[in-house]
């Protein structure tokens, strides 16, 4: 063993040992397995093992039509189902050069930002639980439930909505959609204030996150980290700003950046992103365009032969959809560049030398969704 000091007497020599964290472990939130080499409490090495929830989504798309493939994308990052659907739909629309109605675009953005809110609320609860506070978990779920109710009423589903389709959205929103959302947003703002009083201001919580899991800017860029994880390291990478889609260019919103690089910065970035999402939705609510909710599309979609790429900003980072079409009704190849897979790369470099408790804290703030890694 490396750290064995031979000069010491035999009974004082220490050995490293390997602990498997996962695939069944309370704080990996899925079936991720981390093979951690420990020296006492200190982490010497981490080796993530993937593949426990590999469903072959990319391969399955090759034998399914485009519309059917979009259903599968809901199952990748199940906390960003709307945004995954949106990415796929956008790629197909790009290939067919379909003009999406303004109303559909606005509904898509509202749904995507609501999805970001649900995802971050759930993250907030589970993050606090990983650090040892159980109560926030219930609060997070309570608040997410309010948004899921809106999803349920308007799209028919709660988790895997399959609402956004090529050409627009599946069905028009309810007449009460705008008023429902206005009452919801008032509530959500109250919840965010509650989050701050309960956890953000807690000294133990701050000390657990500050200076833990430091991901320097250069490392974040070279590992391909995106989303809040990278923005907390000061990397400006918001796809909604740089490659706007569905009318994000017309909206006014900030890209939340933080130069802290540590877990605390990642926490703050996500908390601030929730407020920014509310702001985005508010801008759209007052002038939701009238008109069609879906452009006319053919029953069977055939993309012209070629390669198409579309990127969107999910709750966890940049999701890229790469479609290679040979002109038939099925994709020749569909590849997803998922944010969690790239962000997972950061787990090892930021945790070597840290304590086991720090591993949980930095894993929580990177916010991995395991089915998104494996697909």
């Amino acid at each position, binding site marked *: 063993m490396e750290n064995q000091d031979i000069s010491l007497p035999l009974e004082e020599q220490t050995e490293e*040992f390997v*602990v498997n964290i996962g695939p069944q*472990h*309370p*704080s990996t939130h899925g079936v991720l397995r981390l093979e951690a080499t*420990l020296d*006492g*409490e200190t982490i010497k090495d981490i080796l993530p093992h993937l593949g426990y929830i590999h469903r072959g989504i990319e391969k399955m798309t090759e034998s399914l039509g485009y519309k059917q493939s979009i259903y599968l994308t809901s199952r990748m990052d199940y906390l960003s189902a709307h945004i995954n659907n949106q990415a796929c739909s956008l790629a197909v629309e790009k290939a067919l050069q379909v003009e999406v109605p303004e109303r559909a675009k606005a509904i898509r953005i509202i749904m995507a930002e609501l999805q970001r809110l649900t995802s971050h609320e759930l993250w907030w609860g589970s993050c*606090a*639980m*990983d*650090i*040892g*506070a*159980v*109560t926030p*978990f*219930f*609060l997070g779920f*309570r608040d997410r439930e309010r948004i899921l109710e809106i999803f349920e009423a308007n799209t028919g589903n709660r988790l895997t909505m399959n609402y956004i389709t090529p050409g627009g959205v599946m069905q028009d929103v309810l007449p009460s959609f705008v008023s429902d959302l206005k009452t919801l947003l008032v509530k959500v703002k109250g919840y965010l204030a509650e989050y701050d009083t*309960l*956890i953000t201001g*807690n000294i*133990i*919580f701050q*000390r*657990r996150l500050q200076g833990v899991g430091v991901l320097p800017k250069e490392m974040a860029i070279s590992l391909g980290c995106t989303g809040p994880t990278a923005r907390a390291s000061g990397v400006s990478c918001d796809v909604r700003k740089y490659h706007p889609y569905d009318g994000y260019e017309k909206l006014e919103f900030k890209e939340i950046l933080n130069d802290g690089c540590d877990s605390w910065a990642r926490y703050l970035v996500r908390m601030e992103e929730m407020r920014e999402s509310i702001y985005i939705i508010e801008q759209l609510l007052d002038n939701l365009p009238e008109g069609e909710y879906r452009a006319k599309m053919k029953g069977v979609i055939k993309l012209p032969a070629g390669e198409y790429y579309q990127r969107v900003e999910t709750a966890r980072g940049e999701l890229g959809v790469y479609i290679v079409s040979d002109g038939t009704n099925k994709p020749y190849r569909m590849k997803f560049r998922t944010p969690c897979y790239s962000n997972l790369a950061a787990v090892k470099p930021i945790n070597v030398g840290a*304590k*086991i*408790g*720090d*591993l*949980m804290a930095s894993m929580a703030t990177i916010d991995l969704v395991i089915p998104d890694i494996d697909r």
Partner: protein
Amino acid sequence: MIQFSDITSWIHETLSGLLSPGLTFLAELVLAGVAVLAMVLVFVVIFVYMERKVAGFMQLRYGPNRVGIWGSLQVIADVFKLLLKESFAPDSVDKLLFNLAPYLVLAVSFMALAPISWAPGLQMWDTNIGVLFISAVSSIGVIGILMAGWSSNNKYSLIGAMRSGAQIVSYELSAGLSILAVVAMCGSLSVHDIIQSQADGWWIFKGHLPIIFSFVVYVIASTAECNRAPFDLAEAESELTAGYHTEYSGMGFGIFYLTEYINMLVVAMVASTVFLGGWLPFHIYGFEAFNHVMNFIPSWIWFFGKIFFIIFLIMWFRWTFPRLRIDQLLKLEWKYLLPLSIVNLVIVAFITIMGWHF
């Protein structure tokens, strides 16, 4: 009003009339043991139920509400489930230590109950080193936890046990020092004397700021000694799954669970005895009518009320705070609580010598 001392002396006289002095002593020991055992088990059942209801209240849910009225029989149902489950031991464990550890932990926490004064005249063992005995004995429990962690032959258990060892040994110091502050003012280690010295006012009110500080330190340190959140590193479920009792099932786990609550009971009893006047009623000097009304409330209500107050505090911590990291935990003790407690003790000694306390 019937006093507890009347009942105990009646039992003593009846037994002396029937048996020889040696046998009387033996019978009384057995009686006292059974009484305390029953009492403590009833307490634990109430605590577990209370914990779940408090947690439910804080977490926007109901807590148990199916078995019995308001779910009051849930705990009993759970105990039956644990009793019926197989107490499984994996092949690789050290069987002797593995099976012995829960009982050691349990026995130690019961030992700490011996010098407690439950009510006027209701005390098993009025020794002149009562408080010292409690702090000494309650630190033996860590050996049981280390045994459990080591014999389980499981890495999670081992890490949990080592954390627990470091933690209990460290926090024992400030818990002891904060009790010593009162001992210095009162001048006795006997539980009975400490309670009697508070007849004109509890130490937390009589002892100025230093004793209030000691009380806060004691509650923090004893929460850590009980391995309760935010100091539950030994069983940190998001890090170590279940810590030192990962491999235990059935009643082996049940006993560790039981012990956690008995430890909380001991801690609450010591805190209420030393700082809050034990079974003495709340008196304000000079308000004779008020004091007289307070005297009508039975002593056991006072004592149990204080216990439940402190238990509620500890539960409140658990469901509110995130967990500390191991180095932060030790830093809190060795860099902040211990030096401050020592300074505090010096101030208390000075106050006592000058006779500035009430």
